[in-house]
């Protein structure tokens, strides 16, 4: 087009630029808060950057980012297939408690057996949580968003209940499960992390996250399964017409998405947590997955990068109190970023609205 492109057009047309723009706005809003509190913006953001760029700091970031990446992949996968997996939170919780049970009860099994068993239990539990919701949707047309939110709470209380069962519950005073067997842990050896100057919690989870990223990409882009699920997501009528079983596709999509969220739960447990606490509120890894999927444009590799970025914010944010800034500031920044990404529709429509508001031509579309 020969028409001169304004900043608005540019931001609206390029998803990546739009996301970058949202991130910058997020930090700008954070800066306003810092200024209001009378803190140095340079010092606070400087601390944020320095805490995640050292070798040790960066390995912490990597460790933090693993559950966010895999939960993000879970949500991104659901976006691609036309369902919105807001239930990743519950699937994550189910995955982690299932892995914990296996890791505690079968602690004597060798690593090579126990770790895959934990993963399998976690993925099965997450998938089950997804399938139930998908079944309710395809069988009786129950809105999946509503049932997922309910299932998040069911998972939350179920996890607390299981953590209280004597065979699982901690022998000490802690309101938590026992620690999982060291055979279920994915940590690198203490000697290695210490001598290499890495974070002591550095573990195999990151490698697994990368492998899962590639697998998800392969499934979405290269397989007939991905074709089928995307077709149902993009136009279920045409997919049905073309002979695709739409209900089976929705079940499959939510099962896979749920399995990924469950896996994310086990990675968090076996890489970092080591045990499951009795929660007083939802931990929010699954909800963070939604944020990461949005930031990553639902592209698996985008999610990988967004997950690391999110991990950096969370880890770096925890160091902000060293300069007197509240840790909550990071939540303000994240919230703002998400806000601007989610209102991308407005960015896209703003220039269009400018053109058509006089005619009301947008109204028909808006009503659909």
């Amino acid at each position, binding site marked *: 087009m020969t028409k001169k492109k304004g900043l608005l057009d540019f931001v609206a047309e390029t998803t990546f630029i739009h996301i970058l723009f949202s991130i910058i706005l997020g930090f700008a809003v954070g800066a306003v808060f810092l200024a209001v509190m009378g803190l140095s913006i340079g010092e606070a953001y400087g601390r944020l950057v320095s805490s995640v760029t050292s070798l040790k700091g960066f390995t912490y970031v990597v460790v933090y980012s693993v559950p966010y990446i895999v939960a993000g992949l879970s949500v991104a996968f659901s976006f691609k297939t036309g369902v919105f997996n807001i239930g990743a939170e519950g699937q994550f919780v189910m995955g982690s408690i299932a892995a914990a049970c296996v890791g505690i009860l079968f602690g004597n099994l060798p690593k090579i057996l126990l770790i895959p068993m934990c993963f399998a239990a976690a993925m099965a539990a997450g998938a089950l949580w997804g399938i139930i919701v998908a079944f309710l949707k395809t069988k009786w047309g129950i809105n999946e968003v509503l049932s997922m939110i309910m299932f998040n709470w069911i998972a939350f209380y179920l996890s607390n209940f299981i953590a209280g069962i004597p065979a699982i519950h901690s022998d000490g005073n802690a309101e938590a499960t026992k620690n999982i067997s060291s055979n279920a842990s994915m940590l690198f050896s203490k000697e290695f992390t210490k001598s290499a100057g890495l974070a002591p919690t550095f573990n195999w989870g990151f490698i697994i996250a990368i492998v899962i990223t590639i697998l998800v990409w392969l499934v979405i882009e290269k*397989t007939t399964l991905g*074709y089928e699920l995307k077709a149902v997501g993009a136009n279920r009528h045409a*997919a049905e017409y*073309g*002979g695709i079983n739409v209900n089976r596709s929705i079940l499959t999509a939510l099962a896979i998405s749920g399995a990924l969220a469950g896996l994310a739960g086990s990675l968090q447990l076996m890489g970092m947590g080591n045990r499951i606490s009795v929660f007083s509120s939802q931990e929010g890894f699954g909800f963070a997955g939604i944020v990461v999927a949005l930031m990553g444009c639902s592209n698996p590799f985008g999610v990988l990068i967004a997950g690391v970025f999110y991990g950096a914010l969370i880890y770096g944010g925890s160091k902000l109190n060293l300069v007197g800034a509240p840790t909550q500031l990071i939540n303000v920044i994240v919230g703002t970023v998400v806000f601007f990404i989610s209102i991308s529709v407005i960015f896209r429509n703003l220039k269009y609205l400018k053109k*058509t508001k006089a005619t009301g*031509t947008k*109204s028909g*579309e*808006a009503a659909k």
Partner: protein
Amino acid sequence: MSKEHVDMNVPVIEMRNIVKRFGDFVANDGINLTVHKGEIHAILGENGAGKSTLMNQLYGLLKPTSGDILVKGQKIDMNTPRDAIEAGIGMVHQHFMLVQPFTVTENIVLGTEPVKGIKLDMATARKNVVDISQRYGLSIDPDARIEDISVGMQQRVEILKALYRGADILILDEPTSSLTPQEIEELIGIMHNLTADGKSIILITHKLKEIKESADFCTIIRMGKYIDTVDVDSVDENDLASMMVGRKVTFQVDKPEQAPGKVILDVRDLHGVDYRGVEILKGLNLQVHAGEIVGIAGIDGNGQTELVEILTGLRKGTRGDATVNGVSIFNKSPDFGFIHGVSSIPADRQKHGLVLDFSIEDNLILQNYERNPFSRKGFLQRTPIFSHASQSISQFDIRPAGSEKRPAGTLSGGNQQKVIIAREVQNDKDLLIAVNPTRGLDVGAIEYVHKYIVHQRNKGKAVLLVSFELDEIMSLSDVIDVIFDGKIVCSIPGREANENDLGLMMAGGKKE
């Protein structure tokens, strides 16, 4: 047609040497257009010739790269549709822009609602709307909700919307593409009422018959270039068609005589209900033989839609049977029907025919993505998928060339239909069901679609053609079955049919 209502001394629209480029692509290359007061001016061109681009510039949605636009003698810089509206231009888009849950009155006054204090003055609004509608003979129900009224009435609402905003120059973009023959006749009457009152109308279309019936002048555009402006009285449909596509067009379908073969599709005592659960198919019987085109003629709502949905596996019937080559496809999945010999060109190409976000190459394998050679062990094989698309694009003349990876949604309607035709013809099943296969297409594309439908018949395939275009049914069918009230009420050889008898039987009357 007499031109007494046209005031040739008063040009209301002058577009001079309009050029519009999108990057390297020249959509409009030096187009001239003059429209006078009281004139109906048709703009004729194939799908993608640049008609809509030209009109979008007149309506302020796009800015010309170069060239001038004069409205009523004044040069106007059209930046937004507001400028166009202020200059007295109104546009009725092909796809209506109406708020479905609002009433007719609410839609018409939307944005310019009369107020009393801080309250909406709906009584005045309603009165104004009724006044204008009576003045131009646009019959509407001011209190009906848009979602409850017919497509024809929705269009009248769109026209009223423009008139309500004071338009005296109306742009109608493909206004007849979704109307029934009766509604088209009504629309032409309305257009004449408007021009008699001094309004001017620009009619974007590719339907030659309607141009002959309604327009005074016609400007022809081909591949973005200005071809000519002609007095409609001085040309016939063949002249217009050849100017539009740049070559001679044959309306006659070349169809050799051939004896039908064995029964392919056999529908027995079919019963079914519509989306409300009301019985709409009431014991329908139908047969289609190999090497035969059976046309279903009927007024919309007599069960054609449900018949096709049952045959393609999208809807469950309540009773009866339907077999293809002796295998029952009744109440089976779409895939089952496909495997046993059913392919179809669906009525709604954007809803059922294509996944618009998918590329052309992916749309071309919609039923075959799981089969050799397009996938192996669950992995899509991109090389055969791409070469299949390349070959289809050249064989079926899908434009633009080289669009294998382009989303189907970016193609023009005619080319979208070609993608579906390419897919279904290459599926090469024993039965082809085609539903309104040429709706919204230009003559070039229609000729093309007809050629392939007849081609399948000549190859010995059975074709079931469902269409609201009687001309299409009559020119293609070997046998015409008239559907009325959920049954086939009569079956006559295609060459013995005439429009009057068919019309009578479609309305439930008996042939004398």
